[in-house]
């Protein structure tokens, strides 16, 4: 089969359109560069009525929102999921890594939690504190100006708190806590756990003329037709197009490899058009990888040549290594004093209005890194699963569980909005022994070799999860509540999520000054190939107990500025 070649020479080809790819698209196109964005999924715009799920009612779906097809429920705006038909991935040594992929313009930014936290100086240099993992080659002051710019461009609500490990930003004002969050604030206080307003990228106040202000429907995971939350399409790619950027979007286009010349420099990408299933070639002076930590690693590892026998830019052998995800564990509680609630609309923003940043000193604990606590609860919209076991809480009052008839109606109403829960999201230590690699025996339906995962948690993460469980139980008791379910045991990893499940996978192309121990330099430029950059979470040296997106955005902006500078200096 012949490869179909485009005659256009792009300044930059960007592979992927999520947070990192979107930011690169905006900054590079606005600098006047001619940009191609290659996205494996379809076009998506939250404003498109045909694609919208915002404000849909459960009864508009025959399965009432069940997650049979979309993993986070029928109305979630992530096309793709844990498993994509025809695009498998495999496991090694009993690993159970779960990999979430969104195939659509904007990628996973269309449904994510919008928790937007800055890394602190300690997060960049944590090895100095406990001797574990590695330091980043950059520190907070290098990234701070870009965090500031991201705050102002995209908008993030929060509050100035002056906490050294939770750097403040240019915040929009925070929404008031809901009832279950006020309960949480009191319960956490009794255990000495601090609570502050959440920091999330929904626009609670006008940030620019093109985007609306939050309408408090709680449905950010469905993508916002008012563009009042951050997603890569609505906040970066569409505005860049509006500003007259020369941007060609290639959708349903699956990049197979980065092409190179005799000197080992990148010349473009080879992709498969999913519609006609033919191979195409795009030419570019620079290639920016933004396909997600694991997808970018896969493409680079599959880009083998005489000059790059182990995969593009992989002389260190470290592409795919140091893969790590946030830790996660969760727990729920039933709060009897919240029964028989008065009904009012408390949808609020999608997700939490308050949270708890890490508050303890790990020197006094049996695990080295911290976690933050996320809170959920409230009188949410019923969906599939609502009313299952409608009166199980009767057991707390010595009443019969089960039955039928009109009493079920009063049971459902009595307990509606009386449960809440917590998710702990923590930092794990990046290890060389946790990795993804190319499976030599398996290809996807496009004939592209797939990833194989090797990932094991250690006692550090298990002990951290155990601590989460103890904290959650204590706080639920403080609220006069009943903890739901039994305490997870050591055999159950104390309820620790499987790796990958928190969808914060990072580290596969890590950053460093030494080409032998890292894949990219501090500008996310490959040590071996100076015209290839990586702006997803692959370059993260460590994850921190923070969600990665705000740092992906800040670094992608910093890298894009560097690329523009290189063009100006004619270094590229």
């Amino acid at each position: 089969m012949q490869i179909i070649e485009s005659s256009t020479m792009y300044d930059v080809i960007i592979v992927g359109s999520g947070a990192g790819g979107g930011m690169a698209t905006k900054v590079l196109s606005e600098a006047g560069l001619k940009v191609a964005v290659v996205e494996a999924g379809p076009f998506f715009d939250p404003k498109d009525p045909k694609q919208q799920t915002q404000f849909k009612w459960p009864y508009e779906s025959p399965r009432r929102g069940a997650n049979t097809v979309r993993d986070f429920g029928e109305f979630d705006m992530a096309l793709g999921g844990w498993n994509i038909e025809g695009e498998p991935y495999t496991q090694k040594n009993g690993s159970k890594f779960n990999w979430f992929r969104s195939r659509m313009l904007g990628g996973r930014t269309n449904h994510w939690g919008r928790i937007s936290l800055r890394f602190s100086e300690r997060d960049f240099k944590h090895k100095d504190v406990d001797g574990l993992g590695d330091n980043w080659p950059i520190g907070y002051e290098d990234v701070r100006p870009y965090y500031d710019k991201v705050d102002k461009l995209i908008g993030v609500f929060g509050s100035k708190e002056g906490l050294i490990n939770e750097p403040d930003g240019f915040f929009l004002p925070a929404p008031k806590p809901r009832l279950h969050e006020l309960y949480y604030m009191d319960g956490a206080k009794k255990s000495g756990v601090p609570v502050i307003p959440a920091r999330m990228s929904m626009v609670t106040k006008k940030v620019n003329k093109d985007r609306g202000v939050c309408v408090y429907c709680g449905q950010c995971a469905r993508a916002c037709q008012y563009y009042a939350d951050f997603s890569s399409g609505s906040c970066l790619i569409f505005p860049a197009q509006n500003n007259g950027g020369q941007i060609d979007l290639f959708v349903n286009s699956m990049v197979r490899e980065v092409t190179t010349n005799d000197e080992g420099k990148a010349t473009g990408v080879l992709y498969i058009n999913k519609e006609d299933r033919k191979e195409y070639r795009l030419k570019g002076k620079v290639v920016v990888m933004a396909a997600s930590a694991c997808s970018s690693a896969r493409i680079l590892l599959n880009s083998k040549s005489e000059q790059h026998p182990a995969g593009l830019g992989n002389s260190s052998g470290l592409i795919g290594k140091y893969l790590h995800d946030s830790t996660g564990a969760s727990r729920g509680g039933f709060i009897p004093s919240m029964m028989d609630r008065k009904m009012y609309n408390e949808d609020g923003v999608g997700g939490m209005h308050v949270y708890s940043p890490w508050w303890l000193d790990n020197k006094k604990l049996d695990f080295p890194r911290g976690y933050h606590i996320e809170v959920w609860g409230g009188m949410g919209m019923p969906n599939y699963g609502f009313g299952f076991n409608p009166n199980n809480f009767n057991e707390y009052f010595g009443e019969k569980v089960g039955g039928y008839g009109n009493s079920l109606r009063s049971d459902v109403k009595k307990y509606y909005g009386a449960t809440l829960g917590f998710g702990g999201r923590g930092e794990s230590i990046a290890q060389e022994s946790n990795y993804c690699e190319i499976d030599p025996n398996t290809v996807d339906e496009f004939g592209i070799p797939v990833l194989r995962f090797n990932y094991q948690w250690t006692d550090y993460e298990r002990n951290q999860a155990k601590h989460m469980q103890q904290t959650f139980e204590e706080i639920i008791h403080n609220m006069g509540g009943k903890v739901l379910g039994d305490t997870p045991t050591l055999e159950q990893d104390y309820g620790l999520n499987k790796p990958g499940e928190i969808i914060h996978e990072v580290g596969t192309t890590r950053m460093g000054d030494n080409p032998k121990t890292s894949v990219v330099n501090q500008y996310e430029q490959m040590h071996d190939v100076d015209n290839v950059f990586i702006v997803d979470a692959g370059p993260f040296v460590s994850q921190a107990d923070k969600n990665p997106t705000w740092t992906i955005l800040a670094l992608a902006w910093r890298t894009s500025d560097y690329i523009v500078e290189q063009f100006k200096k004619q270094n590229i």
Partner: protein
Amino acid sequence: MDRRKSIKSIILGGVAGGLALNGCKPGTDSDAVVPEEAAVDEKYFGRTPEEKEQIAKLNAEQFFNEHQMETLGVLCALILPANEKYGSATDVGVPDFIEFMAKDIPAYQTELKGGLMWLDHKSNKDYSVEFKKATPEQQKVILDGIAFPDEKEPTYEQNFFSLVRNLTVTGYYTSKEGIEDLGYKGNTPNVWDGVPQDVLDKHGKSYPKEWMPKFVDQSKRNVMAEWDDDMNLIT
């Protein structure tokens, strides 16, 4: 300015070589990205073509036969009967919802069919009549035997009943009438400005004084945000 009128870039459905989909060419103004007046697809609520196809396929199949659907209708109405204000679960279409779920989640199928069969068997044995034709009193006697599951080791019949009750309650409260019955007030654009005072009072809660300046002043939500150099919001 309308984004769609000013766009200079294009979407290429994977096709290189200057052949643009949507009938637009590179470098020309185009409003072809998203049809502004695209009809709201009421029926498919944001489905992809593949998802639509899959729903149509399930709808074309019939899992329960007529007798089973009638039995399910009687059972759902016993689980959630009509009251003075709202119809029964059967009145709001729960049996059709269960029919769909049985196809959508095949793991339910044997338990549902087998359970319905058991209801007739039990009714035939005790009252010499199929379940759906038994008197409400007889039906309730049968249900009383399976509606309160053993905590440690629930029986097969109890599991069947629990499954149907779960599907019935969830089907009812995700219906238009059920949501109204529940009193859920959301899923609509609004402005959240905190828990109502009477609710705060009832629960003995209040917003801490030192938190008040952190909260959004909803009267200024449409005023453009500006900050001083020290990260203080000044608008």
